[in-house]
């Protein structure tokens, strides 16, 4: 889906700092890829490059073999839905009105919403369990509820690729699992490609198919979830004493701080 070739990124200003250096990677289609790494390792920066919020200093990014920049704004919005870390919440919109904007890439400024649009909006709200808030103001919701509303908007957008920047940062454990399970299900049901920046090692190990670890703006490891949940790998990525134990009667591992 997304292919990066020798991509680097520099901060703006007089003394630009290289935040990402020489990254080459392919994100597989139809899989849940997680980007992990310590704070400041360039996770969000990389995701913003994919979402076209940042422009690479060098290298090339392609989406479906087409160069990223060659998409028009609207085409790109139909292909890629992006949820930033802390999206601006318009204070005056109700949940339903906000989710409805997910249809903007398809209907544009003047097109009428049809029955199918309303169906998609309703379905997106059901899947994320926000239907009960439909007529409340987004600004009056709690952080976790808001995150689910944003996710509903992204689902209404109906794009084959979801880019999520820490989509579960404000959620309690139950909702973290729900959301990631939902994303994982969507991936298998409708073949979405998901690329998410995630923090929680165990959640990554549980739900992600493919993992990319960054350290200091460089690729430091990539592979499958099973390989990821190994004490050596984790120690290497996070530079912290981490151990893993295998859960009894299960193939899953959980991590602990040694």
């Amino acid at each position, binding site marked *: 889906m997304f292919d990066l070739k020798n991509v680097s990124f520099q901060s703006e*200003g007089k003394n630009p700092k290289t935040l990402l250096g020489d990254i080459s990677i392919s994100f597989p289609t139809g899989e849940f890829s997680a980007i992990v790494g310590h704070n400041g390792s360039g996770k969000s920066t990389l995701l913003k490059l994919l*979402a076209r*919020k940042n422009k690479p200093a060098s290298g090339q990014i392609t989406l479906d073999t087409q160069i990223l920049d060659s998409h028009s704004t609207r085409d790109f*919005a139909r292909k890629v839905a992006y949820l*930033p870390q802390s*999206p601006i919440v318009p204070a005056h*919109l109700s949940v339903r009105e906000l989710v409805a*904007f997910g249809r903007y*890439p398809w209907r544009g400024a003047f097109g009428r919403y049809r029955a199918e649009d309303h169906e998609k909006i309703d379905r997106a709200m059901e899947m994320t369990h926000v239907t009960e808030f439909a007529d409340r*103001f987004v600004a009056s919701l709690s952080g976790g509820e808001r995150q689910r509303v944003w996710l509903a908007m992204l689902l209404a957008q109906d794009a084959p690729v979801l880019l999520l920047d820490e989509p579960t940062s404000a959620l309690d454990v139950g909702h973290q699992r729900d959301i990631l399970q939902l994303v994982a299900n969507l991936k298998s049901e409708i073949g979405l490609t998901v690329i998410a920046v995630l923090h929680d090692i165990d959640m990554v190990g549980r739900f992600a198919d493919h993992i990319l670890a960054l350290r200091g703006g460089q690729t430091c490891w990539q592979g499958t979830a099973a390989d990821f949940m190994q004490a050596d790998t984790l120690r290497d990525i996070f530079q912290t004493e981490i151990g893993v134990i295998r859960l009894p009667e299960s193939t899953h591992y959980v991590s602990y701080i040694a």
Partner: protein
Amino acid sequence: MSGQKSHEANPAMTRAINSDMNRFFHRGPTILCIVLALCSVTILINDLWPFLQNGAGMNVIFHPDETDFDQILFHFSTLPRITMAFICGAGLALAGAAIQTVLRNPLASPTTLGVGAGVEFALTVFLLLAPAALAPFKEAAALAGGMIALGAVYLIASRRANATLWLILAGMIINLMLQSGTQIFLLFNEQYLQSVFMWGAGDLAQNGWDSTQFVLPRLLVGVAVVLLLSRPLDLLALGDDTASSLGARVTILRLLILGFAVFITASVISAAGLIGFIGLAVPAALRIAGLTRSRDLMIYSLLTGGFALLCIDFLVRQMNGLGGDIVPTGAATALIGAPFIILILRKARIMPGQQSEDHHPDQQIVSKNVLSLVLVFGLVTGLGLSLFVSFNGHDFVLLTGGESFHDILLQRSERTFAAIICGAALAVSGTLIQRVGRNPLASPEITGVSSATALAMIIALVFFGFGQRADLMFVGAVGGIISLIILLLLCRKFTHTPHYLLLNGLALTAILGAIVRIALTRSGTQTSMLISWLAGTTYFTRMDEVLIVAGVTVALLIVVIAARRPLELASFGNDQATSLGLGISGFQFFIMLLAAILAASATLLVGPLSFVGLMAPHLARIAGYRLAGGHLLGAVLIGANVMMVAEWMARNLLYPQQLPTGLIAALIGTTYFLFLAIRKR
């Protein structure tokens, strides 16, 4: 000169000004100060040179030969002027440094926070109205004016999520209100116009040592107090909670320092008039150059400010030559200083603020049809009343028949329609700017579009002698659009923070202020017409002009209502809007262009000062018009209603004298904002 350089990071300030602080720039403040000092010495020697040549150098400074005209001129005019320039510059820069530190705001200063305008207003009112017996209280009045203005600004801005920006915007509102207030007083006292304006424009010309003797002791007291308090000031920069846990009495300290900063400003303005931007630019520049400790900052500001104003004043003197003052120093300072704001903006990164933490109450979504009907009904009945009922000072008079029935009706309807249309146009313009700029305090008045329109017209009228209203209108419209394009170009780099648009607007407004003052000091006969137009009178409007503006307004209103969906999307912020497929930069440009055209057309009719563009969209939003389309219609209805009422009051309140509609609207608007600010507490 203190050579201390602080390497201690001052968290709040470094957060506010995130300039690159490498070692070279640490030497910046010293170099800047020394260069300006050398220039000042050169200027002094240059002025003294003729006397030094014939060995009268010492004489002319201390005991001039009273038979020699040149020596008298130097001793009683040039030398006190140089001294005054230094004192005023030093005082204002110090006051600015203190205010900036106390309020933790790199754009605060006596002029941007309304202190200058407050002092000026108080003094103007005092000079024109107070009986001679009250003369000893002149200073108290000036001080009170400054403090009240600052207090009002602080009241509006405090407890907001993004206080840095609100403070500046509140300052602009208070500034505009007080300036229009000053103008209205002058309008009714035309005989003093010329001299008061000369003073108001910051005239440093001296004819003796009186002013120096007035300002110097006051400045010394102020400087002593502020410097004594400079150590606790560093604590304030850490934030209120930290400071009070370290044992500083935050509130008292803050009030004391602000009080003395205002005292210094009031003294300087009483003696020399409004000299803008020294108080803003000097401390800001020094801080960008690497000064962070408040005591160092103040000492450097004192010296640098003094030398800087001395140098600027020298340039002004050269421009004016011998033929008296054409350009007052204060106005020239603003002209030089305003572009500097833009420079500061490029260096200083003002944080757009965290997302506001306020928990919105869970309101019901209600239809606004009833309210809209009431507003339409109000507009229609109000129109009838406005056309047929007037007030002659004692009674309400109903217009019935009579010889001049048609003439009076025509005249009244011209003015009433002009007001209504302007209200609508400004409301649409304001709604667009507030929505696209994602800032509830933005408006055409504040982004400088109105100012630029007025500026273009004034330049055309005063400096190039355009007399025809049609020509002037064209020039004004072009001016408004050019200003907008300049603003957008300046702000292109700041696509993520629409706030810069507003702050650049502040610079534009300041430039307008300076040029208006210069124009008014030299325009003679047209002055009074200019002032009343600036204050927003509908007196000069003609029906055909009203119809053109009405056509433009209706057409553009239809366009933006059709585009209400992307307009709503714009409130998601640029990143999100792009993610959803809206080419946001192009769209923003388009909307801002429409807003500028609307603002310019309205300004042509009623001048730049009305607050309708700020107030109407704000009120509409509070009344519950949430979505873009409804917001636009609600704002239009409210704007039209407010302007209609303002126009009726302007015609009838002081009958037979006519007040400018824009000013009445401005008074309604600012009162509303003060009320809002107080209620929020």
